[in-house]
């Protein structure tokens, strides 16, 4: 009754079985490798966003007067007056930039001036390249919580751009990132390309240390 399998089919099946086992083994191995690579990458990525272990300045760093730009009104118009503040002249440019941005995030002390950054916004990272472009990365609320208005958006953007470029002449352009990514605009109006200092809507007239900036 029982039909015997022909010999060549038997060999074929065995060969297939062996092939399948080998392939499965390789497959499991490859999957394992990929998983370990992804894991490693994740660890590296998390490291990059870890809070700085070193403080932004040393106790020996001398104080440095800076002007921080905040929205305020003049004769019923929104402008961007500057407020005098002090940071510390740390050796690293990025640390000085972070201190300036911290002041921007903290908001103004002078009555009549308004915070320029929407609430819940955090500074994620600052990177300055050789060409003098500062890439400043804020958390999502910078865009999501922005109340809008073209002029008001200009005030937010140039509060950041002017505060950095005015006080740190090494920074020539500022590129604002939101949540680690490029965004076309914050609230639908102003292009977030690398932007230069624009003092036309401020009460400050001349950039300081112009000679220094050019000598560098």
């Amino acid at each position, binding site marked *: 009754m029982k039909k015997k399998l022909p010999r060549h089919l038997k060999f074929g099946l065995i060969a297939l079985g062996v092939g399948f086992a080998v392939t499965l083994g390789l497959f499991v191995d490859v999957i394992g490798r990929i998983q370990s690579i992804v894991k490693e990458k994740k660890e590296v990525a998390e490291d990059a966003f870890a809070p700085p272990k070193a403080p932004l300045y040393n106790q020996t760093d001398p104080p440095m007067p800076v002007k921080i730009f905040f*929205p*305020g*009104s003049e004769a*019923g*118009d*929104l402008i961007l007056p500057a407020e005098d503040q002090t940071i510390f002249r740390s050796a690293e440019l990025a640390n000085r930039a972070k201190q300036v941005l911290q002041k921007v995030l903290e908001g103004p002390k002078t009555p009549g001036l*308004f*915070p320029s950054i929407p609430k819940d916004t955090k500074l994620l990272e600052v990177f300055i390249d050789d*060409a*003098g*472009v500062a890439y400043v990365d804020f958390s999502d609320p910078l865009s999501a919580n922005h*109340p*809008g*208005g*073209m*002029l*008001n958006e*200009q005030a937010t953007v140039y509060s950041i751009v002017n505060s950095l470029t005015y006080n740190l002449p090494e920074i*020539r*352009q500022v590129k604002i990132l939101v949540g680690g990514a490029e965004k*076309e*605009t914050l*609230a*639908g*109006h*102003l*292009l977030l*390309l*690398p*932007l*230069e200092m*624009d003092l*036309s*809507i401020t009460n400050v007239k001349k950039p300081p240390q112009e000679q220094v900036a050019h000598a560098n």
Partner: protein
Amino acid sequence: MKRSATVLVVAILAVGLSYRQSFSAADTDFPIYFENSTLALKSQTVDKTTYLPLVDIVKHLNLAYTDATAALTFTIQGQNSRLALTPGSAFISLNDRPILLQNPIRHDSGQWLVPLDFLSQGLSRVSGIEFRYRPGDLRVFAGGANPAELAMNAQALGSTTRLTLRTGSRIDVEVQRETAQHRAVLLLKGKPIDPGRERLDYKDRLVQSIAFEDSDGVARIVVGTTDDVRDIRITAAEENRVFFADFIGETVTEAAPAETAAPAVAAKPDAAAPNTNVRVIVIDAGHGGIDSGAVNAATLEKDLTLAIARRLRAALQSRLGASVVLTRDSDVALTSEARTEVANNNQAGLFVSLHVGYSPNKTDAGSSIFVMKADFNSGPANQPPGQRLFLPWYMAYRINQKASEGLALQLQQDLNQTLPGWKFPLRSGPVGVLASVTMPAVAIEFGNLNSDVSVQTLVDPVFQTKVATTIAAAIEKFVEARAGARSQ
């Protein structure tokens, strides 16, 4: 037995496949444009390569040739050069020096067939005529043939679908409607045409397909239409370098004044109303859809901008008789790019973006008129403009910077005058919607949504109409001043 049967089947399949591949010759028409004549050829596709019949070309060029079929060589005699071809070989010999083509010469059923690169590699050297083609193109331009480059664009404008044709030089366009075949043919006359694309991926309620077609040497655009198309109108602009082909659906009542001002005569240079060089004005209602813009408990920026935009459209149509296109006529979200696209694709003469302000200070007036920042992004970290091969799109505004400032000034004057208590300071910034437009453009921001007093005024229909008529009047003055300056 079985095994040999399988082998046989596989062998037949393989042979069949290879046979199919090498002889999948399909006859299509293929034109060569010369300076004063056009040669329409039957091309064959073999091994995915386009082949042209050699004898037809050589005869058209009046070149001496010998076709030694027995010896299987073909020779072409130029003024002081001789070209010899043998079938099956990718080598051709010019004055006994070999030249390697990408594909072999063919000799099928008594006909000599040459691949396209034979024209530029071989034939141009004996004939002295230059042959130009791009890989994948369905036509060749030869010698002094100077084709007009064609750019096509289609867009739905309410009940009309507008096909915009732009060419580098003057042409004439004639429309032939073939209702029975559900298509319209736009004949492009006066110059050979080099289309950037063979077809446009566009389809809507009125237009089913748009394809360029010139296989018989007559350039035309074939538009597949639906039964909903009532009428087709062609309007020429920019001295017959731009044509608007409007496929009109059900009769439009709102746009009626626009049509009387721009008579739809085919191929007549600029037949617009004499007092205006601005044929199309694009009004951009800021924000929309999930993007509400600035927010107040009583109203949203997106609703106010749309309300004012609609009133402004009515005011402009009755005053200027220009076509007015809104970037959005409903509550939809659009990117800045999409808004500028509407203006650029419609060859608009003016672009006005409407916004409502918001100031953290409740007592601020808030209004402004924005133009693009003049020296935007040309700083030290960028290449100097002279060293740039291409300008990025966001610098398109530069062409019209002066005109945009002039328009802003006129708007400021008129708005300050008719709206007492309101002031509109001129400002500039890297405004997204103003960056990539190729016409004079401004953005107007009204009031302060953080102020309840301001909101009460803004939602008032009487105020909105007043704003619209004032802007329309300012635009009219600006357009007339420009037309006057141009005619002098």
